């Protein structure tokens, strides 16, 4: 069953066609990777799906509904969470508070309720805290809950970012180069984590440079080059795909 459908998607920046007539679908429960050399349009594609850019042409359908042109916060409310290539922690907040922000769209208390600390607010606050602690525990970093997030090492920040994204209870999780800046051990650990997240029933789309990770965890791979899709298949086929090899290794 299709969860996300990208149809003839295009994005033009002035004279540059960053994404050119790209189309693919993502089945519910799958892990799909988008790879390609630098400048292939991977991050642009990601930002189009996450609502940070609106497409010049084409459509993005999530659960059959068009989501292109929505604001990022509206996309998030539909159940799409994301992480960032260069981790974006909320500075001035603890690891736990960072994850608690992830509960935003699943909770409702407003300014008045919060300022007056109504019983409903207290109840909700307790639930947010419990759920966020569970998620930190799931990521194996419950001991860092009260540490300022920016003081954590890179691997743990990545885990906090994942926990924050999971706190949104996403149907679809977008991971923008999750292995960037991680060493091989941390990358291997990340691979296991992504597997566990999929086991929760969450569909995953990732952009990644680290081939070992991509080949390990992906069900299918989309290859972009100069904004166009040049291949889409299972990892074993992509590894031997002549055009992909050409793009990555040269002629």
């Amino acid at each position: 069953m299709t969860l996300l459908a990208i149809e003839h998607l295009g994005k033009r920046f002035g004279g540059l066609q960053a994404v050119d007539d790209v189309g693919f679908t993502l089945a519910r429960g799958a892990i799909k990777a988008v790879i390609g050399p630098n400048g292939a349009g991977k991050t642009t594609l990601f930002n189009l799906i996450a609502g940070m850019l609106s497409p010049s042409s084409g459509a993005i359908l999530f659960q059959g509904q068009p989501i292109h042109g929505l604001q990022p916060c509206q996309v998030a409310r539909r159940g799409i969470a994301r992480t960032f290539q260069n981790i974006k922690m909320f500075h001035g907040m603890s690891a736990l508070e960072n994850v608690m922000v992830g509960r935003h769209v699943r909770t409702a208390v407003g300014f008045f309720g919060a300022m007056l600390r109504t019983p409903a607010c207290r109840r909700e606050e307790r639930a947010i805290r419990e759920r966020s602690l569970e998620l930190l525990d799931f990521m194996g970093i419950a001991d860092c809950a009260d540490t300022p997030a920016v003081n954590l090492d890179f691997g743990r920040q990545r885990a906090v970012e994942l926990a924050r994204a999971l706190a949104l209870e996403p149907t679809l999780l977008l991971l923008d180069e999750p292995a960037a800046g991680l060493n091989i051990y941390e990358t291997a650990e990340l691979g296991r984590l992504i597997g566990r997240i999929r086991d929760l029933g969450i569909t995953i789309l990732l952009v990644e440079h680290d081939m070992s990770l991509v080949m390990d965890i992906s069900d299918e791979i989309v290859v972009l080059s100069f904004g166009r899709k040049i291949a889409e298949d299972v990892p074993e086929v992509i590894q031997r795909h002549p055009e992909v090899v050409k793009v990555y290794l040269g002629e």
Partner: protein
Amino acid sequence: MSAKEFVFLPVMAAVVLVQLFTAASDSAYYLTQLTMAAYYSLLIVGLCVLMGYAGQISLGHAGFFAIGGYLSAGLTTRDLLPWAESPVVRSLDALGCLNHGQDLYGAQLLTVAPWAAAAAAVLAAALVALALGVPVLKLKGHYLAMATLGFGIIVYRLVLASEYFGEADGISGVPGFPLLPGLTVSGDSAGRVANYYVAWMVLLVAVLLLRHLIDSRPGRALRAIHGSPEAADAMGVDVARYKLKVFVLSAVYAALAGVLMTHYNGGIGPSEAGVMKSVRWVAIVAVGGMAHLWGALTMGVLLNFLSLRGVFGSYDDAVFALILIAIMLYAPGGIFSLLPDGRWRERLASLARRGKSGEAAP
């Protein structure tokens, strides 16, 4: 009561102790400046949440203070008798929003009741903040500072130029604000102690509400916007909407401060709307440590008290400007970061490390 709320107890104790001290040492006149400092601090804690927690700067908050103060002053002093037959005035009168009184010479006087004037003034400030916030909160950093500065200048020139607001003289003869039977917000020396407690109660309740806000869903959303607007947006926080809400909230705090101060002082003048006042408020929030509600409150009370006592003399504005420069250069984390358990320890540690690695090097 959480640990963060526990702080209120010693603060309340200090408020009472200060009053008892002034009573014992026959120096109750200090309470007047402490009352005024508390009202100014009401504006400052609101600005602290806007700047320190939500990360939006405003150089126009004296403008919101002035909207609150001037509107409540104008409405409670300007005679409505010439319009007594107009449907608007008649229906206001029927609703009990108007006071029938006498002026100094015994002539009939029809004015808006203080509570109705206060409600109108605070509502007006909220609406102005809403109308101003929609376009200007799209701006970031110094562009937002410039736009709010422009707003502050407009309010200043408007009150200075309009006859209704008393031009350069401002408005005087503002009546007291009756809170309860026998309790009125006014500068009457008989009610000095009561007014001191009223001001501090208002301030502490206002801080408690902000404290609750900061440690809750909307407060975390605001802090997330400060931390990373893109990530907050991606987590489903409607960034524009939240910025607007906190801007309006801080404007309401400022306007309420203006209303209460004006009734306490019995008047308001154009210097309250001046741009230098806005700069002063920003300086105080910065000295307090930006994202530090108690720091802002402490410095708000201390510096305003000193200023109102005339300690800085005619160099008043210069002192605040100097404080702003000094704090930016030497303690951008606020004055409390210089305390022994603050940054000095970190600095010493890093110096020690550097010293050690220096020794280790050949």
